[in-house]
Each structure stands twice: as C-alpha cells, then as structure tokens.
C-alpha cells in the first residue's frame, strides 16, 4: 500500500529531524561535549523512518549502537536524547548509557546495544513474550550487515523461524562493518539470502528510498502480525559518515561517498516526490526544514543547560530492591504527567494458550527420525 501524502510529509519531517540532529551531534563531538564512541546514522534515515511510520507505535523496536535517530523518530524528546549524549542527568538514562545505549521505553524503543548482534536474541525474546501473551504486536530489530556473521544471528533466526515468532529482522546493510567491506569477510554478502537456511522469508529493498522502505515494512508487519513467523529484510543503504567519529573512512573512495551523497540521499529523493505529487510546496518544505533545525538547536540548548549527573547516582539502577518502581524518564526530567508506561498481565490473569510445539508434531518428527 503506497503511503498517503500525510505519511510522506511525516517521513520527510522525521528524516530531516534525524539528519539535523546527527549534524548537531557531530558538531558537539568536535566540541568535546560528546565523548567516547559516537556513531552517526546520516544517510540511512529512510530505513528507520519507513519502519517507524509503517508499523504501530506500540510495536517493539531496537537496534545496535547507531541508535540516536530511531528513538527521535519514534517520539522521544530530542533534548533528552542530546542530554544523554552530553552525559547529563536529564538524559534518558541519566548519562549512564550514552550514545550507544539510548532507551526510551515509553515509546517502545528498547535500545541501544554495543556488542555487535547482541540485540538479535533479545528481539526474539520480546516477540516470544508477545506470542506468549497472545498479543498481535510485532518486534523490529535492526542490525548491521557485520552482525549477520555473529553466532547470535544464526542461532536466533533458527529459533525465531522454528517457533514462528512475530519479528522483523532488518539488516541495515551499509556495506562496511567498521572498515571491512562486507564481501571481504562474507561467503554470502547478500544477507537476505541467508533466510533460506532457516526456511524463512528474506527480502532485499532499496534502503535509500523512504517510500520503498515504508511499503516493505507495511507488508512485513502484516505478514508477521498474521502469524506467518519472522522475516529477514535487507535494506541496501549507505552511511555518509565514518563508522564512528574517530573513523576517517580511508577504506572507501571519496568518489564513492560523493556518488551516494549526490545521487542516493533519501531526503532530496523524497522531497522531489512530494513536490511532484504536489503534497506540499517548496515553501512548506522549507518551513519544515527550518522547524527541524530549530528543534535541534533547542535540543542542544536543553542539553547544555541540563545538570550534570551527581555522584549520588553512582550506585543507583544496579540492584532492584523489592517494590522499587521503574524510572519514567520524561516524568523524572520534565515532570510530565502523561507518561504511558507498558503494563503486563499479572501471573494470575495471564492465560497462556500458545502450543509452541504440538505433541503430535513432535511425535511425528520423532517417528520420522527413528525410521
């Protein structure tokens, strides 16, 4: 189903927001306001925005450590994301997580993981929980092409496919695992083809085109929600910046990067479509651009003004004492009263009806094995 004009404009606005935010993050890194590792999403925005707009706000989502942009597009407070990058107390994790561990549970954004591929099994667990509770929720898990060479990828896809878990695995293939071009270390560099090994669906799509991305996720979401099991998507994408802020990216040519920036950039591409469809005028799009720039300037100002995290937080959020509630960041930082936190059925209310492995099927498999 093609996206409506409203969706096109929302995707455009969010991609510009992500782009401007990452530019601000890059600048702040240069000013040493952000330190440590910092991986920018610039260039890959169409993948995240397609998933976020095509799926439900209460679907679970997560990625690896290139994770600033996704939560912002899901509705996280840009100032609180920037404050987390600035290691301030007003950040989502009080400055304890930083760039690689941005988590906003209120918007069903679950992180934020620094070990390559480490989030892949977590996503299966979240999808397992949805099926266990008989919810029609889908989980979306992003990772880079390099993560597809981890054991976690193979182990998890096998289980997810066998148990028909409602999870969309999306490999954001930006071609380089840090400095290593994917085909140098991969016997099958077309990651989506690996789905065949687990008898599951695998599809590649143009990850530099927001409309294609949206349509792909819309279809994948319906496929998973209907109980067909997991799907492996491969978004062919490209990052315009180095792997992290400390990467000069000498392993690829300037021409290659320029080619992608001039011909592949998903933002002007969508802008052209919007204009052609007359969904908005140049002036209206310029106004959107200006507004996103302003939001990001405000985010920096918010983070600049935010208090440091005091040493009284050194030992907090470690061991949970009985009855200790979860921290609701927007309420803690902004005093927000409208925070909707996920709640789950109690152990007495919950009725598990899922028969994960029907006894007859298991017995049949055993018979076949014996024969």
């Amino acid at each position, binding site marked *: 189903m093609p996206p409506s004009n409203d969706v096109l404009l929302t995707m455009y606005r969010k991609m510009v927001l992500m782009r401007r935010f990452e530019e601000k993050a890059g600048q702040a890194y240069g000013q040493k306001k952000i330190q440590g590792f910092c991986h920018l999403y610039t260039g890959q925005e169409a993948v995240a925005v397609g998933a976020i707009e095509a799926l439900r706000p209460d679907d679970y989502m997560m990625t690896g450590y290139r994770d600033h942009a996704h939560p912002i597009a899901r509705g996280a407070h840009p100032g609180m994301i920037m404050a987390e990058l600035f290691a301030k107390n007003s950040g989502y994790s009080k400055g*304890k997580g930083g760039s690689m561990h941005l988590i906003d549970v209120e918007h069903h954004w679950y992180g934020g993981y620094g070990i390559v591929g480490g989030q892949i099994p977590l996503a299966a667990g979240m999808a397992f929980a949805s099926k266990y509770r008989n919810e029609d929720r889908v989980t979306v898990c992003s990772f880079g092409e390099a993560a597809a060479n981890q054991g976690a990828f193979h182990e998890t896809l096998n289980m997810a496919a066998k148990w028909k878990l409602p999870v969309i695995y999306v490999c954001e293939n930006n071609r380089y695992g840090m400095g290593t071009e994917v085909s140098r270390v991969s016997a099958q560099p077309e990651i989506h083809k690996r789905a065949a090994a687990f008898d599951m669906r695998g599809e590649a799509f143009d990850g530099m085109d927001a409309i294609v991305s949206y349509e792909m996720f819309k279809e994948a979401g319906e496929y998973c929600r209907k109980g067909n099991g997991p799907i492996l998507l491969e978004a062919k994408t490209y990052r315009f910046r180095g792997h992290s802020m400390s990467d000069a990216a000498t392993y690829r040519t300037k021409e290659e990067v320029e080619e992608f920036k001039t011909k592949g950039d998903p933002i002007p591409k969508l802008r052209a479509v919007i204009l052609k469809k007359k969904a908005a005028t140049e002036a209206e799009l310029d106004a959107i651009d200006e507004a996103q720039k302003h939001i990001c300037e405000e985010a920096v100002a918010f983070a600049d003004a935010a208090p440091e995290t005091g040493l009284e937080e050194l030992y907090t959020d470690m061991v949970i004492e009985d009855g200790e509630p979860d921290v609701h960041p927007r309420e803690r930082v902004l005093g927000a009263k409208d925070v909707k936190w996920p709640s*789950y059925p109690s152990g007495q209310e919950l009725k598990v009806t899922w028969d994960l492995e029907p006894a007859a099927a298991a017995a049949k498999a055993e018979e076949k094995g014996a024969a």
Partner: protein
Amino acid sequence: MQNISYREALNQALGEEMERDANVFLMGEEVARYNGAYKVSQGLLDRFGSARVVDTPISELGFAGLGVGAAMVGLRPVIEMMTWNFAILAMDQIVNNAAKIRHMSGGQLRCPIVVRGASGAGGRLSSQHSQCLESGYVNIPGLKVVAPATPADAKGLLKASIRDENPVCFFEAELLYNQKGDVPEGEHLVPIGKADIKREGTDVTLITYSRMLTWTVLPAAEELAKQGISAEVVDLRTLRPLDVETILASVNKTNRVVIVEESWPHASVGTDVVDLIQREAFDALDAPIGRVSGLDVNMAYAAALEAATQPSVERVLAAVNQVLYR
C-alpha cells in the same frame, strides 16, 4: 517435612512457581519431552504445556538472550543450562545484557531472569565438563549468584530467585541431584543473601558452599569433633551478595578460619572471603586464614587424578590443624 532429593526439591520449586505465576516459563535443552538431562524438569511439560516448558536447539547464546529479551518485557524466564560449562557460550548475553540493562536504561528496564544448571565435577567427565565457574559471575555487578548445598535450600532459593527482580545465576551441583534431605512442605522461601550456620562450633570456622558442604566439610567437622575440636560450619548459599554479617560473626566467635571450595584457587569466591575477613576482622584472627580448593590444574579423566584434584576431608583436616597450630 518431607525427605526428598535435591532434584525433586528443584522440581517442586519450579512447579510451584509456574503454578503461582503464568509469566514464569522454563526453557533449555532437553527440558520438555526428555524431562530434563538431569530430570529436574520431570513432568513439567505435561503440567504446563509446550509454551511454558520449551525444548531449545543447542544454542546457549541464542536462548539465553531470548530469555533476557522476554524478561525485559515482563515475563519471568528460567533458562536451564544443561551445565554451566556450556553457559560460557551464553556469557555475552548474561554479562552484557542481563547484568547491564537496568543501568544502561537509567532504571527504565528490569531483567528478572534465572539462569540455572549443573556445576562442578560430575564423575569421570574430564576437563570441559567438570568446572566450577561461579566466580566469573560473582565478579559481575548487576547479577546475583546463588549456590545451594541442600535440598531445602535448593527449593527455597530457587523460589526466591524466580521471584527476584534481578538476574540470578543459580548454580546447582551435578553430584548433589540425588542427595536427599528434609524439605518443608508447601511454601518455603530462603532469602537471597543470607548464609546459614549448618553446624555450630567454637574452635574454628569452616566456610563453604554447594557440594563441598555435605561431601567434605560436614564429614570433616564430624571427624574434628571426635578429636575434640568444635568446628562451626558456615554455608554461604549466596555468593553475591555475600552475607558479611554472618561470616564476620562466626570469625569473631572462633578466631580461626578455613575456606573450602571446589573451584580453582585463584580469583575465586574463597579469595573474596579472605579479603573480606582480613579487612573487617583482622584483629579477631589468631592464625592466617586457611584455604582448601580444587587444585590449580585442569580436571583429568583418570580416577586417581580426578580425586586428587578435588578438596578432600583429609585436606580440610590438614588445613584446620594448620590454623590451630596442631
């Protein structure tokens, strides 16, 4: 009171907690149709169905991580590792995700998972299947580590671990599964973080945990009693957090300490307890702290070498004689 095996005690704990809370599920290799490699999960598939007692492929990293993810959104997984030797493959998920998600999220998420399985020597299993790896987890902030020695403690601590809001690594001992003991009927909880005096004494404190309690330390205490030495036996039960109070009270009472553990001698639970005592009860000590541990070698298949590698009653008696200057 019922007299049941350590295995049956664990089975009761699992069954009762799964009955009490439908969010609790058990997942691991051979736990369902095979009824458990060590039969800890006997009968649970029939009682609770295939979504709550789940046979997995041999993918320790994958299903440990699946458990962590399920715990992050409200379920209470019990992940069975056939043995802790295999959990080395899952350590990334336990250490990097389970132990850190509360902190990384600034208190937004929690991970109430139990990872449990057999540990230690099993009898002629050679080096890859005879390890005590608990100290690696004791080292990690964000985890709790439990190692019960008796059927009653196994039941009470497993129930408490399943109800705990934090990730708990639960070390069972392969050679304890058949050991019988008295276990209270019905609801029986043992708090995490509390050691237990398994035998009162006045002359020397023997600190231990897991299988060494019944196989080595209590028999040694019995022998010492015959020789007129009154040994107090402290069963740590929980290795993280340590019960500092109980340990120090006993040291202050007897002034002499021997620590007995099955694991290797370096960077172990024993070295941690030595550190605690020398810092907090230095003046109470009448002798340097004695230690008996597994030897600093890999476990051999050959019976004589295997026996010599592990702590024995004789080695405990020798260590006690040393701290008593006998």
